């Protein structure tokens, strides 16, 4: 009875512009993953040949990953199930390990939920959390940061770049300031990892979270970088894998595929991506202007941004209506996280930038580009948005 039948009409996305949510696997990544799934199945903790084979593959991959962020040693890389687990581990375990030194944590108002929710839980346990405000471009002020820092601060967790509006945080400056402070510095680099050149020594980063599926790797694999000397017990209790820092049999085929995805992202490849994606942003903005669509950017095209994320306020058209119409036209964009109820949770990022009463909260969409995105797809997106806007402003349905 439970035969699965999914008509292509239902799922065919001709144009995928939600690469900040997840990305398709790169062909070479898929090939690596498939090969290792089929051929390297030994448990990496075992002492016989198949186990050693897995172990070697895993350790070679760990070195590739360590190099990708200029870590001093591959021992500073802990493989996890992804960004959420890395964030949870870095925050919760640090707080509990270091609470004798103080119970104050600094973060921003626009972090991902995987950072905010563990912090909310810590607040219930008596920790004090400062949420740095952002301006209308989604940026924090270093003066605010300095003012918030005190002798009780044990952890600073600030994202490298925002997933909804693409604003970048002054990671290097924060790292410099924290040089003379007890607080450990964690950054959620889940969105930034695929396009920025990361150097944990240059920026004095103590902990850093990433996820493979945002960089054309497989889902449910990521890593947490932790500088030598930064120690905490495993969030997940169990076996002694990952130097006792993360229990559970390692997913070696996914780890190998993750390394393959990371290797593709050379500094040159990332620079090329940034330039191409910046061009897409300009193409969208110019295209919508040319077609007379009334819109504004949530964030900015100027200054330092993640180039794959573009958040648009399409004035007068609800997020849900725009997103649904685009979906019916075969174009996938993000409209925030939806309840099953048909209402969309108001974005805490846009709320922090513009206030809860701003019409932008209910009338914005996010598009995000990926390696497969083409200029023709951007044109099609622009044409469709313009057509939807024209149709909706002509149909006097009220």
């Amino acid at each position, binding site marked *: 009875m439970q035969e699965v039948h999914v008509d292509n009409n239902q799922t065919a996305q001709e144009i995928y512009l939600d690469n900040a949510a997840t990305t398709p696997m790169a062909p070479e990544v898929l090939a690596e993953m498939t090969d290792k799934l089929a051929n390297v199945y030994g448990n990496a903790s075992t002492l016989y040949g198949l186990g050693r084979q897995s172990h070697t593959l895993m350790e070679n991959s760990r070195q590739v990953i360590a190099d990708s962020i200029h870590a001093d040693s591959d021992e500073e890389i802990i493989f996890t199930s992804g960004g959420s687990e890395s964030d949870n581990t870095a925050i919760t375990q640090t707080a509990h390990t270091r609470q004798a030194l103080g119970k104050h944590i600094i973060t921003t108002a626009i972090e991902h939920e995987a950072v905010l929710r563990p912090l909310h839980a810590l607040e219930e346990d008596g920790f004090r959390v400062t949420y740095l405000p952002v301006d209308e471009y989604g940026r924090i002020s270093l003066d605010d940061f300095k003012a918030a820092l005190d002798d009780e601060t044990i952890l600073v967790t600030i994202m490298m770049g925002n997933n909804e509006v693409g604003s970048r945080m002054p990671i290097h400056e924060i790292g410099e300031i924290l040089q003379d402070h007890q607080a450990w510095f964690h950054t959620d680099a889940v969105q930034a990892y695929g396009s920025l050149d990361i150097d944990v020594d240059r920026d004095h980063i103590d902990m850093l979270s990433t996820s493979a599926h945002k960089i054309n790797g497989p889902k449910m694999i990521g890593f947490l970088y932790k500088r030598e000397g930064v120690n905490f017990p495993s969030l997940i209790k169990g076996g002694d894998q990952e130097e006792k820092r993360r229990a559970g049999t390692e997913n070696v085929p996914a780890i190998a595929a993750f390394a393959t995805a990371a290797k593709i992202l050379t500094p040159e490849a990332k620079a090329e991506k940034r330039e191409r994606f910046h061009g897409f942003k300009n193409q969208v903005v110019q295209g919508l202007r040319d077609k007379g669509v009334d819109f504004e950017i949530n964030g900015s095209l100027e200054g330092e941004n993640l180039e794959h994320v573009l958040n648009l306020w399409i004035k007068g058209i609800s997020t849900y209506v725009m997103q649904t119409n685009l979906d019916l036209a075969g174009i996938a964009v993000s409209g925030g996280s939806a309840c099953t*109820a048909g209402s969309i949770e108001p974005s805490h990022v846009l709320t922090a930038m513009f206030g809860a009463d701003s019409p932008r909260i209910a009338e914005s969409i996010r598009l995000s580009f990926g390696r497969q995105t083409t200029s023709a797809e951007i044109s099609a997106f622009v044409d469709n948005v313009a057509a939807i806007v024209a149709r909706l402003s002509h149909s006097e349905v009220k």
Partner: protein
Amino acid sequence: MQDNSKIRVVVGMSGGVDSSVVALRLKQQGYDVVGVFMKNWDDTDENGVCTATEDYKDVAKVAAKIGIPYYSVNFEKEYWDRVFTYFLDEYKKGRTPNPDVICNKEIKFKAFLDYAIELGADYIATGHYAQLTRDEDGHAHLMRAVDQNKDQTYFLSQLSTEQLDRVMFPIGDLVKPQVREIAKEAGLATAEKKDSMGICFIGEKGHFKDFLNHYLPAKAGKMMTVDGEVKGQHAGLMYYTIGQRKGLGIGGDGIDNEPWFVIGKDLEKNVLYVGKGYHNPHLYATHLSASDIHWVNTIDRGSDFHCTAKFRYRQKDTGVTVHLSEDGQQVTVEFDDPARAITPGQAVVFYSGDECLGSAIIDAAYNRERELQLI
């Protein structure tokens, strides 16, 4: 087969078997079908968790099986403002409202229709048991369903032809067992699902008294006969409907075994009137007055005409003569034969043969010159 692929039909999918079969049939007929689940009532729990309702999961299962995209839309605010406040106001006046009639008028065939048009719909379709015919001018006429047991034109009687012009009722030609059979053959997850209770905010459990008490403070008072004999206490006038027998708690009086019925309410004195016998004369009216008149098609029938009518859902038609006031805002409906338990707040729905002409909301019932119920 006619090419319907360019005609987009947005189906209001409730997660029940009827709307599931609607979506299936339209898809089989080649339409560009889009499923939309409507959420009109907030059942979020006290932790603020935005819960996935079982119904929406069923919509997802059925839509995936049929191969159509599906979405959900939230009309909680619209429902609260346009239906629920009306519902409470009517109860406050001691009347027994019919929220489904207003929900169809204001939400399913207005807010939802508007939303569907925003999604590029040419039509919306629902799982209502009713049929439409289109006249030479292309205007829709509302007709009873083939399944007379299930006919829902009563609830659709406040819709206008302008609304119905963009509507399809694809299962109005089927009887319920056929609908279930089609769903079963197609392997739809909802094939054996129990029918819902109707009024969406009360839910399946139907703790109606508790529910109402949550919004309207109940004021207990005396239960008495028209002769002033106190028979007990009532829990609050809003909990009782004219003609109701159950829940009065009046024991036998040792004279006969005739049961007691609610025959009237006095809101000012907070008195519930009861009378003995199903055929208690106080329950029988010769005519009624009604307002909020709505005709599906604006056809001049003159100020006085004969047709049939229902005074509540699932009742046989009664022959009536309609007298419209000069301004068309009031109507007096005279019955061919006395009618029992006419209830203010319910709709009086007019029919000509199988065509539903429209309806009005009942204000008062009369026996010759005497107004009933507010005795």
